[in-house]
């Protein structure tokens, strides 16, 4: 078990680095936010390994939860999320609702 901890830590740090670089390099804003959320989750595990569980709780709630939601809402307001897909989803949903109403 004690042998595994340094390996686990190395994996975490490498994936943290990969996530950070990928956030900066990704072209689509949507992908960027998802990778950023993954970064926050890895970071919260790193906080636990650094023996600060209170920061880990905050990082998981704020970094992965609330910030991601706020970023998505901003994207939606700026119409940067795929519009065709949104229309498609809405149409599918409306037809589903109609079916439900018929039942």
């Amino acid at each position: 078990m004690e042998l595994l901890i340094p390996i686990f830590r190395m994996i975490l740090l490498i994936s943290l680095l990969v996530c950070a670089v990928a956030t900066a390099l990704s072209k689509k804003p949507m992908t960027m936010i998802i990778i950023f959320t993954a970064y926050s989750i890895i970071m919260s595990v790193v906080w636990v390994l650094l023996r600060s569980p209170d920061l880990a709780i905050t990082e998981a709630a704020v970094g992965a939860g609330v910030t991601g939601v706020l970023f998505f809402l901003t994207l939606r307001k700026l119409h940067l999320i795929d519009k065709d897909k949104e229309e498609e989803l809405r149409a599918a949903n409306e037809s589903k609702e109609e079916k439900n109403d018929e039942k």
Partner: protein
Amino acid sequence: MMKNKFSEKFSAWLSGEVDLTEKIAEEKRTEAPSRISKKEEAEETKIIRSLEKKEIKLSFKEYKVLSVVFCVILIGILTATVYFLPTFASSDVPAVNEVYEHYVAQGRDETGAVNTVAGMILDYRAFDTLGESFVLFTATCAVLILMDDKHKKPKKEMHETVNYSRDPIVKSMAAILIPLILVFGAYILVNGHLSPGGGFSGGAILGAGFILYAMVYGDEQALKVLSERKIKVVTICSLSFYCLAKSYSFFTGNEFNGVHSVISAGTPGDILSGGLIMPLNIAVGLVVCCTMYSFYMLFKRGRMN
């Protein structure tokens, strides 16, 4: 001569007098009529344009090279700074001094909090935390000013893409998860002086729970539960309570005016211990929760009702 010209142009570019994007847009605008014009004129404009294009290309190259150089220098400075940081958990760092020793040795008896961090941020350094709570309050005000479109004419409502409360998976998962999240947030708030966590973490979890509720069951339903008026009242009451409570302990903590605080630290480890730490944790948590929730509402709807 050439060098002088280049340096002049470079300084103009640096100070923002030469706008590259404007030039490109102008080029696009002039492109259409130039096709209709006579051959000679067209050739002339062609030459001018090719010259301009060269300029633009050169400028872009400068921009790229400079940005790379800037990034490399910044990375170098930051990496060099890491070498000056003390090793993690070593005992001879500058932070390990008599203040730290006092906190670790006497913090538990003086504040009554088993969680030393809570004792520090809400007892020894409570005014810092008060400032942080006011930062959050100010942030909410700023977002309200920026995003509030109550007085503008109503735009076409951005209707929901997916009605999540009809989705069987989301519906049943939300019914299980939302109460759990809210109870966990409340547990972290109330246990702030005993276990890791405290005002900010617990409040963030509570806020995330309410945001999830609003996402699944719709904003109108969520605003019935946590309306604008309630948020205002809760935030202002929490901040005022914090101010009053900390002023009281600041006043009675002074040895010279002869007044002693009636609030005792209690037995460390009990749920009702730590003096003012638990109520202050709850006040901070409520402020954070309301901030997160109102951020979501303002970003989503542009208003709070």
